[in-house]
């Protein structure tokens, strides 16, 4: 790939990353070993709680694919490539922490946990969108949705009397909202560069959005039903806590999205019809 001189956009993305990284280093770092009150794991908690933890962990365990895919898309851009590496570090703690909880709570043995990883590793996650800009829009939406779900399940952990899991979910949720803000800052810069094109990509992402574990995690549909019972994202929550907040942060009015959304929905519906035929 031919390397061009550093552009203002590259400089801006680097600055966004450095601001994110400074805040992460100064205010948001947490230790899996020192900051989780592991002695407050509730070994009498329900199997349903454990199933939800395992589902979160399962989605997080596709990390090698997320990192490989993401870093290759943004490799030529310094700030974004380093972001991807840092993101991978932060996300790696999530699956490790959730796995630790499953074992320390006695809900899964070490053998079960490793067997589960082997099942997970049989499938490969592939990026749902083709371009770096579309994947950035996807990140802005997906991280927001993930944050909302972790917050709901943090409350579920407290209801089950598990302070260790509550604390772990709290740290993970803080990471997820920080990731959301990074992606949204980048989308803001992309909107300034090409508003029409970025709106089209954002609309495409909303139209075709699905969480990363779909079609990958074993028994996903049954797991999601259980997750929703305890705090998943249904239609109202998606509108209220994901769609509208993302648009608000990006300073996009609902009506500004209509034209781009119309095309994105038509494309999606045409593709679905084609697939059915």
């Amino acid at each position, binding site marked *: 790939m031919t390397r061009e001189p550093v552009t203002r956009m590259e400089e801006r993305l680097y600055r966004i990353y450095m601001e994110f990284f400074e805040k992460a280093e100064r205010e948001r770092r947490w230790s899996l070993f020192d900051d989780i009150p592991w002695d407050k794991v509730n070994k009498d908690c329900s199997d349903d709680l454990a199933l939800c933890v395992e589902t979160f962990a399962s989605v997080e365990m596709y990390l090698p694919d997320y990192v490989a895919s993401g870093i290759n898309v943004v490799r030529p851009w310094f700030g974004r490539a380093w972001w991807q590496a840092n993101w991978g570090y932060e996300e790696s703690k999530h699956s490790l922490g959730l796995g630790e909880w499953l074992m320390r709570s006695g809900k899964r043995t070490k053998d079960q946990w490793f067997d589960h990883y082997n099942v997970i590793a049989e499938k490969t996650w592939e990026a749902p969108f083709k371009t770096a800009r579309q994947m950035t829009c996807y990140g802005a939406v997906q991280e927001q949705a993930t944050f909302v779900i972790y917050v709901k399940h943090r409350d579920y952990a407290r209801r089950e009397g598990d302070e260790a899991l509550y604390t772990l979910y709290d740290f993970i949720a803080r990471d997820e909202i920080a990731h959301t803000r990074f992606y949204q800052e980048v989308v803001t810069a992309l909107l300034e560069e090409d508003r029409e094109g970025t709106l089209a990509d954002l609309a495409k992402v*909303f*139209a075709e*959005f699905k969480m990363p574990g779909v079609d990958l995690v074993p028994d996903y549909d049954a797991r999601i039903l259980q997750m929703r019972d305890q705090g998943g994202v249904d*239609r*109202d929550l*998606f*509108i*209220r806590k994901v*769609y*509208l907040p993302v648009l608000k942060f990006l300073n996009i009015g*609902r*009506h500004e*999205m*209509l034209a781009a*959304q*119309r095309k994105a*929905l*038509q494309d999606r*519906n*045409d593709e679905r*019809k084609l697939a059915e035929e």
Partner: protein
Amino acid sequence: MSDQKDLLGLFKTVAERVDRRSFETVTRESVITDLGVDSLSMMQIVGEMETELNVQIPDEDLVEIVTVGDLCSKVEHRLV
């Protein structure tokens, strides 16, 4: 009553345009999620109805919409 019918008719027209299928049997009592309309299509239907009628439903009211009648009522309220 005729205004109600017109809004229901407008909902069907817009929904058919957005989702590219028939909504002929829909009534005001129909629950929108039961119609197989997803979050984004719902937002598109609301936005296009607002545009056609030159009204705007506040964002905080959107989550109160469960049935087609709820949406029509929100629009009617803004038309008055």
